[in-house]
């Protein structure tokens, strides 16, 4: 009986592993350039670059919502965490040189958000492409 259970469990595990393929999101134009130049994005003080990136991936909603309340309600502007900075770096450009909305299918935000089934409400109000003058 226990042997059967182990076989079953290992079969289930292998299915999960097969699905957990490394899905690399479309980083976006500027972020790709940045990476190609060998620069380290989102590097935090006292943390390795890898740890900083994991922190950024896991904590970006908290970081953004903390900052948004400070900005809107207390008038604290500037700083590192700004949604428009995310958009500036992580949007891609199509063949005609036009910016593709960052929340469009297969773009930076939607790749992961669709995968994990988390809705993305930022862009019902916020601009999805860098400002015109950029």
């Amino acid at each position, binding site marked *: 009986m226990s042997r059967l259970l182990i076989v079953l469990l290992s079969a289930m595990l292998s299915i999960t592993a097969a699905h957990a393929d490394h899905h690399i999101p479309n980083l976006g134009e500027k972020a790709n350039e940045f990476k190609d130049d060998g620069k380290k994005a989102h590097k935090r003080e006292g943390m390795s670059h890898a740890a900083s990136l994991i922190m950024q991936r896991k904590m970006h909603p908290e970081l953004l*919502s903390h900052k*948004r*309340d*400070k900005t*809107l*309600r*207390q*008038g*604290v*502007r*500037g*700083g590192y965490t700004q949604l*428009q900075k995310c958009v500036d770096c992580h949007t891609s450009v199509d063949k005609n040189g036009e910016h593709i*909305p960052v929340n469009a299918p297969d773009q930076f935000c939607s790749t992961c958000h669709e995968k994990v089934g988390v809705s993305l409400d930022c862009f*019902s*109000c*916020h*601009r*999805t*492409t*860098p*400002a015109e003058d950029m």
Partner: protein
Amino acid sequence: MKELNRREFIKNTTVATASVATVASGISLTTFAADPKESDPVTNEKRWGMLIDANKLSEVDIDDMVNACQEEQGWGGEVHSTGDQKSGWIKKVKVRDTATQRVSNLALMCQHCEEPPCVDVCPTNASMKREDGIVLVDKHRCIGCRYCMMACPYDARSFVHEDLTDQKEHMPRGKGTVESCTMCVHKVDKGEQPACAQAVSSDAVIFGDLLDPTSNIHQTLKNVQSTQIRADLNLNTGVRYSGI
């Protein structure tokens, strides 16, 4: 060495003490007067306000103000909204005196009340007043119930009825939320003037800190007769009018 008598000793010590005090007060003064940084929260030491002189403001000026506001904040391009559904952050209002038939034109927008009724009625705390007196809608919290639109005596708020794209970077706007004049808070925080005040070349619109005795608006309000619209409601508006 010269011997000091009592009188000379006192004189010298007083001078020395006085100079130390001056230095000390000078230091403390510079500490307090240091320019607030971008990263500091706004405080109630300031209260932003505006004075609109209806006598100096022509109809063309008001149109310029409305256009400047649309350009700056990106409203007015809604295609599916009709009539009252259209956004109107700043409006041209004609007032006619029934006895004299005198017509005055007013630019009417959010009056940035000290006691804002919109904030009182908001069930989610989305409608809010910043410490420096600017009344805003926190669209992260707004559920679109529109109580604030009902509560506002100035009809200053609008509701977004359709999906929007290409919003201004500094002014997120979206379907299902209420919006109104922000007194160009993104510019004010950078030390600039609101777009409507900039659009008028004359001094018909003065923007500034109501509490600062050296500011133009404070001085003018001190010398010129001005009024608040619906002053009977005791809302203590930040936007004042003269010549009406």
